[in-house]
């Protein structure tokens, strides 16, 4: 049997000579690579505008080789609405997606996110859910799980002090303007392959003009979780997926709006 040489290739949509500056073991690098691969496969690099926001996700524009604009914290979906609509008014259709953290998408920016979903803006939002505010050093976020210890929930998240976490993909799936809403994870090869397929589907739905498509990516944050990268992935597999199941919550092609 002949073994062919496997070459590591960098997707065209990743900037040349990029060195990811995320923490060791952080899933952002994997997520961004998947996005870049899908952009390549769908031939979207030249017609894309990406929206970065605040937090670790903002570094998107250091790595992706597509036109990028940064939005104020939480407003990525509003900025994406403006980009998409302005191009449409100008007679051109661009591929527009946001790349945001969970604090950005589901806490400070929930209003903009939810209303873009309700309006059925024909954009794609990617939300990296690492269950805390990563860039500022691991504070409790809207998605921190019950009992999770963070720098602002030192004895663990509890309902008396902090209330409950938001299940973003489930909520977004309830909006009629949404074509696709799913949660994926990146803790093993199987899930990474599934995540890529899901991202591709969400992108294709935008290309078909079906409305707002959404992917929540459960990601590790080893530095702030104070775990090794593999322990962090185990935590996602064994604990977080109980709160945040890996699932497609809405696919308009399978279950149209009533």
């Amino acid at each position: 049997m002949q073994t062919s040489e496997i070459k590591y290739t960098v997707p065209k949509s990743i900037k040349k000579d990029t060195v990811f500056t995320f923490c060791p073991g952080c899933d952002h690098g994997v997520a961004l690579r998947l996005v870049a691969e899908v952009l390549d496969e769908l031939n979207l690099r030249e017609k894309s505008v990406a929206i970065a926001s605040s937090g670790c996700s903002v570094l998107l524009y250091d790595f992706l080789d597509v036109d990028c604009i940064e939005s104020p914290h939480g407003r990525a979906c509003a900025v994406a609405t403006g980009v998409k609509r302005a191009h449409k008014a100008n007679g051109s259709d661009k591929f527009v997606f946001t790349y945001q953290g969970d604090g950005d998408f589901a806490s400070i920016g929930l209003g903009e996110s939810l209303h873009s979903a309700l309006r059925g803006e024909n954009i794609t939002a990617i939300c990296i859910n690492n269950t805390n505010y990563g860039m500022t050093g691991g504070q409790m976020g809207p998605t921190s799980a019950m009992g999770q210890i963070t720098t602002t929930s030192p004895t663990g998240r509890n309902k008396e002090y902090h209330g409950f976490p938001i299940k973003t993909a489930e909520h977004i799936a309830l909006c009629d303007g949404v074509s696709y809403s799913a949660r994926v994870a990146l803790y093993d090869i199987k899930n990474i392959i599934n995540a890529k397929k899901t991202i591709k589907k969400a992108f294709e739905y935008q290309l078909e003009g079906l409305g707002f498509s959404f992917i929540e990516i459960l990601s590790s944050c080893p530095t702030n979780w104070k775990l090794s990268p593999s322990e962090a992935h185990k935590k996602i597999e064994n604990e977080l997926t109980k709160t945040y199941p890996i699932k497609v919550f809405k696919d308009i092609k399978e279950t149209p709006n009533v």
Partner: protein
Amino acid sequence: MSEKELLKGNIAIARSALAAGCSCYFGYPITPQTEIGEFLSYEMPKRKLAYVCAESEIGAINMALGASATGAKVMVSSSSCAVSLMQEALSYIASDELPVVLVNVMRAGPGQGHIYPSQGDYNQAVIGGGNGDYKTIVLAPSSVQECVDMTFRAFYLSQKYRNPVILLLDGMLGQMAEPAIIKDNPYPETDNSSWVLNGANQRPAREIRSLEPNQNKLIRHIYEMNKKYKALEANETDWEEYQTQDADFILTAFGTMARSAKAVCNYYREKGIKCGLFRPKTLYPFPFERLRELTKTTKKFIDIEMNMGQMLRDVRLSILSNVQISFIGKPVGDWLSESEMIGAIDNIIKDCYANI
């Protein structure tokens, strides 16, 4: 053929925006500017232009941020307390050097205040309500015709300097109707092909961002912005003077207050008293230099505003030390009539004139 029409200030702005080539409007209702959004919600879809009833003013201004990055002419309108909500994004827009036109039809404050007309947001517009070293071009119309002319100018300046422009008027002007003519856009189009985001096709990818981890780059960026502001101050400062040549005292006022002040000028001139008027048409850049020149010949200035003295700060900064400055104003939301102005001015100048 453009002909004279009876137009409300708000409608004049909306119509002129369309005539200037505005292709995107994002808004949220608030009195006294709601007609702008209502009118455009009817007209823009007919022309397949972008109109979004935003979920909030925060949503609206951020949609504008995104839309302007494509090179589109973008307008957002709102009023006072809701313009406060937009300050964060305005700071980003200024740093990103994006052309957005923001109309603030001022109502009374602070806080929710009420819908009565006011000039209470001079400070917010001119000094800036957002964080960081940035400037917003501020135009202050005083008639419906100027609402038309300055809307065209706002789009032009925003594109030319890649800078946010605020059209600042009080609720009375937004709501009042006067004959005005909307002609074709008098300004040339600006080439923006070197910076817009329309897909990295046969060119390197572009970034529009305010975050700059490299300290030196950030500092350079701010220096570059500052150069632009110096150019603005040198080239775009605009004002109106009325009988200032031989004036014993000069009234300073902007917007609708300057109209009444002009009538007051006429009143004094008829009595043989030499009164003049100085009206800044651009609040930023403020006509400091011209006002300073005037203080060489006129030693008494009276600033009139529908607030507790906001432009007064810039008037004070303009003048030489041996000049007397008085202030006439009422709290925001309380219209200052011609006769009230005269009463107050009489009090200030009574020692100098026997015939008052």
